[in-house]
């Protein structure tokens, strides 16, 4: 029986190699013909022979940074509220809400935003069609919020309860505990939550596909229509165009894969340093 366990573990590890191999395999023709440089350029006009994916890469990063920086302070606020400012029962209620939010399908966030947020942006801010960077950013930040809260909260729970007792004994009020105890001791948890939220935002497809408008350009204002790397993959595959556009999709997939792997490496590095400091 024991050998089957190691086979299963081997299979799980092999999956990641397979993904990398297949994406690389379909990128090879691009590398061999030297056309990879045409992929990494700034214009996407398939009918004029321009297949640049750099605008999509830039938008993916920009949108994720914007959504993360919007959601991060809110996530910290919610964590402080649930852990320090209210009785334990109410805090648990807040966390249950977060679990529930984490369980709402992505496609439903995007779907509801089409009917609640898009008309709001279109009619009240008087900006274009409402399918824009701004709309996608707001929805995306709501989407990654529960992930960040739950990750940060897990780090808070691991903190030594003695510290909390000591702070109480020193006569600190809840807000002082937040400022002098929570923020310094859980700073790594804060970084990990932010990076994980960022990764989730980069990898998300449905919100940007349904809300961002999908114009392959660099945005001039927050109310411009944009297209992310993930939405680009979905759009090109479903419209089934010429071979060069097709191959650009595999390159996009590889870029996403390496970006997310780097983020993971970063999280591991931070986590390990924390382990080293504790022991």
């Amino acid at each position, binding site marked *: 029986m024991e050998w089957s366990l190691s086979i299963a573990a081997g299979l*799980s590890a092999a999956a990641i190699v397979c993904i990398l191999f297949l994406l690389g395999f379909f990128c090879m023709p691009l590398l061999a013909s030297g056309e990879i440089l045409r992929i990494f350029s700034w214009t996407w006009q398939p009918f004029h022979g321009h297949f640049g994916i750099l605008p999509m890469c830039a938008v993916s990063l920009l949108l994720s940074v914007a959504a993360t920086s919007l959601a991060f302070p809110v996530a910290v606020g919610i964590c402080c509220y649930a852990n320090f400012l209210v009785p334990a029962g109410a805090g648990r209620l807040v966390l249950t809400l977060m679990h529930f939010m984490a369980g709402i399908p*992505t496609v*439903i966030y*995007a*779907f*509801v935003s089409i009917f609640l947020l898009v008309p709001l942006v279109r009619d009240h801010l008087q900006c274009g069609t409402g399918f824009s960077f701004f709309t996608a950013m707001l929805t995306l930040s709501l989407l990654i919020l529960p992930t960040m809260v739950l990750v940060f909260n897990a780090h808070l729970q691991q903190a030594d309860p003695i510290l909390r007792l000591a702070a109480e004994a020193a006569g600190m009020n809840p807000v002082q505990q937040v400022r002098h105890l929570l923020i310094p001791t859980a700073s790594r948890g804060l970084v990990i939550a932010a990076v994980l939220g960022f990764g989730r935002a980069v990898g998300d*497809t449905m919100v940007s596909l349904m809300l961002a408008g999908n114009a392959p350009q660099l945005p001039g204002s927050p109310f411009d229509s944009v297209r992310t790397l993930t939405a680009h993959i979905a759009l090109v595959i479903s419209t089934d165009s010429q071979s060069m556009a097709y191959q650009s999709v595999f390159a996009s997939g590889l870029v996403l894969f390496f970006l997310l792997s780097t983020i993971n490496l970063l999280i591991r590095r931070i986590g390990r340093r924390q382990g080293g400091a504790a022991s």
Partner: protein
Amino acid sequence: MNRPSDWIISTFCRLCTGATAAATLLLVGFLIVRGIGTLHTRLFFGETPWVQAVTGRQPIFEGIWPALCGTVLLVLLSAAVSIPIGTASGIYLSEYASRRTRSLLGFAVDVLAGTPSIVMGLFGFTLVLFLRRTLFPDARTGLSVAALCIALLILPYVIRTTQAALQAIPHSVRMIGPSLGFTRWQNVRHILVPSASRGILSGSILAIGRAAEDTAVILLTGAVARAGLPGSLWDKFEALPFHIYYLAAEHRTSLELDQAFGTSLVLLCLTGTLFMTASFIRRRLERRWSTK
């Protein structure tokens, strides 16, 4: 709370929580208000009488029954692949792997967990292209490829929760087996896995919830708008999240839009139930070890 900065911080925290709760309530409330009226047999089966539809004697043209069946099938298939493999990998990682192997395999699992679902879909797509060029010239996207990709997507959740559940077992329980002269495998089989079973169960339910909600993978691996019930594992299929996406983009009548709201409500109930069950089990579990 005497200093103004204290007041600012606590007000900020309150505002954040209040705004988030309000946004969630608005989202769910809006769905319920728009969708509750559509929840009857018409939503599921259209004009076809339901007995005829469920037994497959008459095709369904309007309802979401095929999409519901597609999602359930997809979830069952991917769970059948990923839960055994994931649980076994988790046990291996926690109980058998050397420090070095654990770190290496752990990294692979983390990368797998971080892989965006669209890339997983792209993997399925390239897999079909690859098979077509090599072994099977008539391979095509469909239920089995989609289930495989979804299985890969949820595999890391199963592995990580299994591993975490095993590592949370207190040392005293962990030593019961060796003190009775159990071998390592007997200890795992009769003491450790049963003690961690609830954690493993909650992780599996969580993974099933993820499998049911994911849209990006099936977008690239064979979900279509009108497929009916899949006849075999190689057929194209319908699924609830894809149905919502499709109707949001392509609805022609307000009736179709109402159906989209109904579908969203059905999907939300499905995943909501799964996620709440998983978190309920996990909370019971935490209490179980902490009272000892």
